[in-house]
């Protein structure tokens, strides 16, 4: 059975486009070409796949088409009418070959499957058009869009060339080898694709390239890759050549992270310990290439040293003094205003002196040359400059860490002051955006507020920081107003916005988080713990009883009119009614105290005690009594039961 090779030859593709194509190809191949597991190859100049064991031709199939009804098809003499003749003709058949069934004429035909080689041109063109990329371009008049120009197509079914045609390009057996050393590479048969390209200076298999790079890096020493440039580098070269270079040790006076950032963000180098680096070339003369790269890195480090020296000469205090002339937000003042708000928030969060001092200096590095050059070093540089100015380590560390967590699942600040400052910064960003009418909408979230909200949740849940969000937002709002910000909206929604993020973060079904969010608990970690407690007890009798009490009381009294404004024990006459009233009297304060103490298991146990008396009440007592006062009192009793359990949240959110 034949093998198919299809290669889309491109000008140098972005690494992300390579990854994306590799992810899409298996399904597209199955949709357009046929079953099986294609071997996918992606790299800077090609997106390709090999599929083995294709069928030689499509399967034959039977098509049965319905024609006119027998009444219409035959006249009174039983002779075929024009309608019958027409239907037969349109199917290339004689009327006598048509079948009569169920009152209709039918044309049944066996359609012979076409040879695969005839089917493929259309299928492969559809496959190319089926690839989707977030960022595409035009490059000629054809109107075809792709991440970079497509320059050739190569398609072979064993030895046969498949004439795929796509907006003026027609596939041939010609691929291309290494851009500079072997521009031509004729693929004689699909099965020889990989070997032919290897002979032409190209390793088409991205996993082989990755493994080769890794092996070579292991050979050259203690390499590191803090920003994960490897996944990009794999798609920047067709024939990896790992080389090493040196840089002048005088640059080691720069913080190591600065050196690594210079190496990785601009150059995609791999740090190899003091004074050395590794990089991956795409072939060429190693001696020339190493010298060139050493010069480039030297220049970049020289530039960074220049910026660093300027910053150090200025010092963090002078940087902080300039913050009043740097706008944080057009409607919310300067970074100096922000620093003042952060100090207040740190106090309110119980952070003490280190976090307050860190808050004062946290944004100073926004005026540094280094952060201007390398935005990703914000915070880190502040920490460095604080240490150089003799700040206590707790202060410097808090400044350094306060943008954490900066990635999904990334680490939280390691120090207590760092966690407080991190929370303060996020609360301030959220409050400002909401207060000036720039809350995120749809996919628009230019200030990364969803990420900030998730970070805040994690600081509460994993970091154990107590975050009374409504009060903190009010405090920041008060400061904003006093500072003259253009407050147009009430930022109280920040609380809801942050709580919504808890739903995706906690490892419990969302209904429990929604139930817990409705509880009158203002502290972020407490909401999380409540959701977890509810979920942990979900299958227990305790939960069932508490739920029953809540649910039955709520169903009957929740929507009824006429409940008394307050419970009057003297109106309770029935035994079951008195029993419920007494249980409620004993249990309600316990629920309240336990919720306040965040002992949610305890609160749930107390609430569950309401279950049996509620059941009995419904069995024995007629709520809708004739006597209006009695009825109103019974409705009130049920509402009080509901409200007592309601301290644990809105249990009706939880499906039973």
């Amino acid at each position: 059975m034949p093998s198919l090779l299809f290669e889309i030859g491109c000008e140098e593709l972005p690494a992300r486009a390579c990854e994306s194509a590799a992810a899409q190809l298996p399904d597209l191949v199955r949709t357009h070409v046929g079953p099986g597991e294609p071997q996918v190859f992606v790299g800077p100049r090609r997106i390709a796949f090999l599929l083995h064991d294709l069928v030689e031709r499509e399967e034959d199939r039977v098509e049965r088409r319905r024609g006119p009804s027998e009444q219409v098809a035959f006249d009174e003499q039983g002779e075929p009418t024009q309608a019958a003749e027409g239907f037969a003709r349109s199917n290339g058949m004689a009327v006598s070959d048509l079948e009569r069934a169920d009152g209709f004429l039918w044309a049944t035909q066996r359609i012979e499957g076409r040879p695969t080689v005839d089917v493929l041109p259309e299928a492969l063109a559809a496959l190319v058009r089926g690839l989707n990329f977030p960022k595409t371009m035009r490059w000629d008049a054809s109107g075809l869009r792709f991440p970079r120009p497509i320059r050739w197509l190569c398609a072979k079914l064993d030895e046969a060339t498949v004439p795929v045609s796509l907006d003026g390009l027609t596939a041939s057996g010609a691929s291309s080898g290494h851009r500079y050393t072997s521009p031509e590479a004729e693929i004689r048969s699909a099965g020889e694709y990989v070997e032919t390209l290897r002979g032409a200076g190209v390793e088409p298999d991205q996993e082989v390239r990755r493994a080769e790079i890794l092996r070579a890096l292991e050979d050259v020493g203690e390499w590191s890759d803090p920003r994960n440039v490897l996944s990009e580098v794999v798609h920047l070269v067709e024939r990896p050549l790992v080389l090493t270079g040196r840089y002048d040790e005088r640059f080691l006076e720069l913080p190591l992270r600065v050196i690594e950032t210079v190496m990785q963000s601009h150059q995609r180098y791999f740090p190899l310990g003091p004074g050395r680096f590794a990089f991956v070339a795409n072939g060429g003369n190693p001696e020339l290439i190493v010298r060139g790269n050493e010069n480039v890195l030297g220049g970049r480090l020289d530039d960074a040293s220049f910026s660093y020296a300027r910053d150090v000469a200025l010092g963090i205090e002078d940087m902080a003094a300039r913050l009043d002339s740097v706008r944080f937000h057009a409607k919310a003042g300067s970074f100096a205003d922000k620093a003042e708000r952060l100090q207040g928030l740190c106090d309110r969060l119980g952070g003490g002196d280190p976090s307050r001092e860190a808050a004062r200096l946290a944004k100073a590095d926004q005026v540094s040359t280094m952060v201007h050059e390398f935005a990703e070093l914000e915070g880190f540089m502040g920490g460095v400059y604080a240490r150089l100015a003799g700040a206590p380590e707790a202060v410097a560390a808090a400044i350094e860490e306060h943008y954490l967590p900066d990635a999904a699942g990334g680490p939280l600040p390691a120090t207590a002051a760092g966690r407080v400052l991190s929370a303060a910064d996020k609360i301030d960003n959220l409050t400002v955006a909401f207060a000036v009418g720039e809350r995120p909408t749809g996919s628009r979230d230019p200030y990364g507020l969803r990420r900030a909200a998730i970070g805040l949740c994690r600081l509460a849940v994993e970091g154990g920081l107590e975050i009374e969000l409504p009060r903190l937002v009010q405090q920041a709002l008060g400061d904003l107003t006093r500072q003259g910000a253009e407050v147009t909206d009430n930022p109280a929604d920040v609380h809801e916005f942050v709580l919504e993020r808890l739903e995706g973060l906690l490892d419990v079904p969302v209904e429990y988080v929604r139930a817990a969010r409705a509880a009158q608990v203002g502290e972020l970690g407490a909401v999380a713990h409540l959701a977890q407690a509810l979920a942990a007890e979900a299958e227990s009798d305790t939960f069932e009883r508490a739920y029953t009490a809540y649910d039955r009381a709520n169903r009957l009294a929740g929507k009824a009119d006429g409940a008394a404004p307050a419970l009057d024990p003297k109106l309770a006459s029935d035994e079951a009614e008195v029993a419920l009233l007494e249980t409620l009297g004993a249990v309600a304060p316990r629920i309240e105290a336990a919720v306040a103490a965040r002992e949610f298991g305890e609160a749930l146990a107390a609430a569950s005690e309401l279950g049996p008396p509620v059941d009995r009440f419904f069995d024995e007592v007629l709520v809708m009594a004739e006597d209006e006062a009695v009825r109103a009192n019974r409705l009130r009793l049920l509402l009080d039961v509901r409200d007592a359990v309601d301290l644990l949240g809105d249990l009706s959110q939880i499906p039973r």
Partner: protein
Amino acid sequence: MSAPTYQEMILRLERFWADYGCVIQQPYHTEVGAGTFNPATFLRCLGPEPWRSAYVEPSLRPSDGRYGENPYRFQQFWQYQVVLKPAPDDVLDVYFESLKALGIDPVDHDVRLVEDDWEGPTLGAWGLGWEVWIDGLEVTQFTYFQQLGGLDLDLITAEIVYGTERLAMYLQDKTSAFDLEWAPGVTWGDVYRENERQWSVYNFELADVALLTRRFEEDERECGRLLEHDLPIPAYDLVLKCSHTFNLLDSRGAISVTERASYIARVRALARRVAIAYLEGERAVAAL
């Protein structure tokens, strides 16, 4: 082949692209941040008429000045700009040939195309392409224009921008642009270092913010007035003046982050109106 001087390198580029069929033009007379702003690119790459041109462009970026103290950063540097409209299918091969003309054989070096999506917000322009690295050094920006003046393009132009100082540093194996041999016995530093110092003082310390703010508004108004008279070519010069004035205000630290966005939007709006007027004018001429 021994390393060419800076001027020899530029002469070789001129020769190469002249032989390829480009109209060799001269630098524009109004301050621009990049060769893309030259009307030989911005205006000529609009519309359906084929066009090939190449020229040196002094590129002014006031906030990149370093008082002549930093060997890699300048408030004025020199681009060699090539536009090929429409982009030929073998445009990359032609570009690699131009490197050979300078004495760089890609077989010996690590010549790489690294993704770089270009955007010129004040011109409402963007394109996709690459930085070209030679042995790790970025020497060229290569872009397929997709939009200019916020308008989709009839023909896709390939724009090749050589950073001449970088390229010369590479060819002459120098680690400082000031040490480049411009002509025999004369360095780049001899020609431009003092220039860098004085302009940095002006750009960062002395440029009159009130005057510049006023000038921006006057030029913006004048641009609109010229557009009313169907004169998109002179109107475009006023777009360039606004853009440069904005850059100067920025280097004086006189523009906040949000004001920045609004200034950019104002220049972009003018660029768009100019582009539309220019296209209408071209169509009117074609109809004669």
